[in-house]
């Protein structure tokens, strides 16, 4: 099987323009004859649903939350990149493209990334027109900041709540189409499976989370905008409900899953405080612009600190090791996320960690406060400092923050071609749910950009091209395939309810998370991964014989919801391990200890691994088949990333 990425011919900068022109169009009068299902209402889903409805398609939008406004995009703090070059500091579409390809450690497609950079400028225009209150300068024009390892200031932001404001913008556009009758909204409704007829996606099966009703919905195209799968680690910065179920069911119906092992561990999160921990909280990366990362220079001092005999402020300047500044003099505290995370793990593994668990490093603002005054720091980060204090009980204006890496984003996802179509025709994946733009590591402020690029500016063209090739007649919901998949879904729900074991769902989820974090997290080894595979298989067996799911299907049942999601995480976890095992190189967020440079940096193997690993599901209990999409680099030269 050969994967056709459908990258248009021609020079990089002209590909998207040419492609838009050669895409087929649906007659305006015919658009209302096509139904499109959009699953998920985050940045990608809400923007796609609104834009498609504006064009005239009939859209059904689904989300498991009680309102589309609650999708997890809302939690993004730092900002959104765009190559506007408003700051006159040398930014350009090409530079944003180049930074993204390089930051992704050369494991993304050039054409996709270039298109992302190209449409980034229109995203800002669109959001401002919607009334998104971005930060502004006194002259009334938009403010920018430098963010997450970028050497230009191209990040637009709305205090520390950029994701919230962008999502509310997309949600308002969506709400307008709901009012117009072009979008029908299905909140508290979860996609349970995909219906494929004659090789094309034709609908979905859902569960109404309030009544438990299992229902079918037919459409000419299905868009999965269902986010990432970071919750496979149990502890992550994702929302509690974020899950892989929609994408995983689509995978089992024929959509290839690409680069599942590429996960991003974010360096600046609040450390774990105990076994009760349910999720981890991110502290925006923008903090690294003014905070300095350090640990004590010796194990003895770290030991005293951990025992509470001394405090951070007691440690003398010469006894502090600013390890990022020391190792990376030119980027210092602003090295990309994977590099910052790995270095924190490295110093903690050496016994230099600073909180009770030994898994934390300091992020210190006293230099910035002395330099800029407390007022300025408060203006920039006030809400983040407040949040930190709320959670930890410590005041970061007085004491340095303690941070540790946590799972934050998944670069892997459903394989899509240039049109964002998966290997199932008519099925699309947008935003974090696909694999396409970030390679092996995502740059800060690029997730919001991608979600909105896909939804506002890519899919409205590419879905049209697909629909134009279908006859404008209604999809037959009485086709037996709908009934068959619906029955499969009901059977699985019944199975979960009937196990009646002894342990709650979280018990299994936590254990899966520990396995994934220890063996498929920041650093991976062949031995650890092999062990993890066996452990996950055993855990999966135990889950299906001993999980306890309470109550019935015909009511709001949060333990059934969780059980259904964790069952899929258990299968995904194994595939992630397989992917990490087969990729005998280190790149971006995937760090195999066997493959590193003498000074401990990721050692890529471009000769053998410059490809996208797409996995094909072959059936229950069978090993998945690896299908490779070779990455061709015509414009950038592959180099060892260096942030020294």
């Amino acid at each position: 099987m050969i994967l056709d990425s459908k990258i248009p011919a021609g020079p990089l900068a002209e590909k998207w323009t040419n492609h838009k022109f050669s895409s087929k169009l649906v007659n305006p009068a015919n658009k209302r004859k096509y139904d499109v299902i959009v699953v998920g209402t985050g940045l990608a889903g809400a923007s796609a649903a609104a834009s498609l409805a504006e064009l005239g398609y009939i859209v059904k939008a689904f989300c498991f939350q009680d309102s589309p406004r609650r999708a997890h995009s809302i939690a993004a703090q730092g900002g959104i990149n765009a190559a506007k070059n408003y700051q006159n500091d040398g930014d350009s579409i090409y530079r944003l493209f180049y930074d993204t390809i390089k930051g992704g450690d050369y494991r993304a497609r050039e054409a996709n990334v270039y298109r992302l950079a190209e449409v980034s400028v229109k995203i800002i225009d669109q959001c401002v027109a919607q009334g998104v209150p971005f930060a502004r300068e006194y002259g009334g024009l938009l403010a920018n900041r430098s963010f997450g390892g970028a050497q230009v200031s191209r990040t637009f932001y709305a205090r520390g709540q950029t994701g919230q404001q962008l999502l509310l913008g997309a949600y308002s556009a969506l709400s307008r189409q709901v009012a117009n009758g072009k979008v029908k909204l299905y909140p508290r409704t979860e996609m349970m499976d995909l219906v494929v007829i004659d090789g094309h996606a034709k609908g979905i099966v859902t569960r109404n989370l309030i009544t438990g009703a299992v229902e079918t919905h037919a459409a000419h195209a299905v868009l999965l905008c269902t986010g990432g799968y970071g919750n496979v680690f149990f502890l992550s910065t994702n929302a509690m409900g974020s899950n892989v179920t929609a994408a995983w069911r689509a995978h089992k119906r024929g959509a290839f899953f690409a680069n599942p092992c590429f996960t991003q561990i974010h360096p600046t999160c609040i450390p774990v405080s105990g076994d009760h921990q349910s999720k981890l909280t991110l502290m925006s990366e923008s903090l690294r612009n003014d905070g300095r990362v350090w640990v004590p220079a010796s194990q003895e001092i770290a030991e005293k600190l951990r025992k509470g005999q001394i405090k951070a402020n007691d440690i003398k300047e010469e006894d502090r090791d600013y390890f990022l500044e020391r190792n990376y003099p030119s980027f210092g505290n602003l090295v990309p996320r994977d590099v910052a995370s790995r270095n924190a793990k490295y110093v903690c593994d050496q016994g230099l960690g600073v909180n009770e668990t030994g898994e934390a490093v300091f992020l210190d603002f006293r230099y910035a406060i002395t330099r800029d005054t407390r007022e300025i720091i408060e203006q920039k980060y006030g809400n983040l400092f407040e949040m930190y204090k709320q959670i930890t009980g410590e005041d970061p204006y007085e004491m340095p923050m303690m941070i540790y890496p946590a799972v934050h984003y998944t670069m892997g996802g459903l394989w899509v071609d240039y049109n964002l179509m998966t290997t199932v025709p008519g099925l699309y994946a947008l935003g974090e749910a696909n694999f396409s733009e970030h390679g092996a590591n995502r740059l800060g402020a690029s997730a919001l950009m991608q979600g909105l690029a896909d939804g506002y500016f890519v899919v409205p063209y590419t879905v049209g091209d697909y629909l134009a090739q279908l006859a404008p007649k209604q999809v037959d919901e009485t086709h037996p395939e709908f009934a068959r998949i619906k029955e499969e879904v009901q059977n699985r729900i019944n199975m979960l309810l009937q196990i009646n074991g002894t342990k709650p769902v979280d018990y299994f989820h936590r254990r899966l998370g520990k396995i994934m974090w220890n063996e498929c997290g920041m650093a991976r080894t062949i031995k650890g991964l092999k062990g993890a595979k066996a452990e996950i298989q055993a855990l999966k067996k135990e889950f299906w014989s001993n999980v306890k799911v309470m109550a019935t299907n015909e009511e709001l049942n949060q333990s059934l919801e969780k059980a259904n999601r964790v069952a899929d995480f258990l299968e995904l976890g194994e595939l992630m391990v397989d992917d990490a095992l087969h990729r005998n190189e280190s790149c971006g967020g995937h760090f195999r200890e066997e493959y590193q440079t003498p000074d401990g940096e990721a050692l890529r193997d471009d000769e053998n691994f410059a490809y996208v690993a797409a996995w094909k599901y072959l059936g229950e209990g069978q090993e998945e088949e690896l299908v490779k999409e070779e990455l061709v680099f015509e414009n950038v030269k592959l180099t060892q990333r260096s942030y020294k």
Partner: protein
Amino acid sequence: MKLTLKIWRQKNSTDKGGFVTYVADHVSKDMSFLEMLDVLNDQLTERGVDPVHFDHDCREGICGMCSLYINGKPHGPLQTTTCQLHMRSFSDGETITIEPWRAKAFPVVKDLVVNRSAFDRIIQAGGYVSVNTGGAPDANEIPIPKNVADLAMDAAQCIGCGACVAACKNASAMLFTSAKISQLALLPQGQVERKTRAEKMVAQMDAEGFGACTNTGACEAECPKGISITNIARMNREYFSAVVSSDTM
């Protein structure tokens, strides 16, 4: 810590419901309030009791999904969301009463979960700028004074949790509605539809069965995002000037 929890249990929207008392021991001060409930729920499950249902998602204080009326206050004793409330705000031996949001327009779904879709319908009535994708001018062609942008942002921070409604003795949704009306009335982008927006959103708010505002200020005092009651004054101004010079008349 050991705590006594009096929790509202209600099987569904038609069930009458009532308080059930549970004992939570092994509570640590570092737990969040919701983590304390997670631990309780795991224990209930092991004992074969249906866990307590409550809404929550991001657990970072931004999605607005969590609710809970704790000891007579929405989101509990601090001016924050329930998910950001930690057990260090309580003391050993305390009894904590946990109820759902109480408002006619927010019917109980199960236990502590309520239906807040009335808020979505208020936004659908006009909480947007009618601009299609692709038709926007360059972002910097619309300069906005920083103080105006800041004020708009202050209002836009609303997370739609509904604490303002739960706090109000009239179950009024004025703070929520006024936050959106203010944000868009302040910005140049919102001017074209300014009047119809105010009229339609206020009409929808009334149609949903939310009460009137009697200026007690409870909403502002309990709002986890510090949305100011001056937004209500601005909304009233917007509304009255809209009805006397309506665009639709």
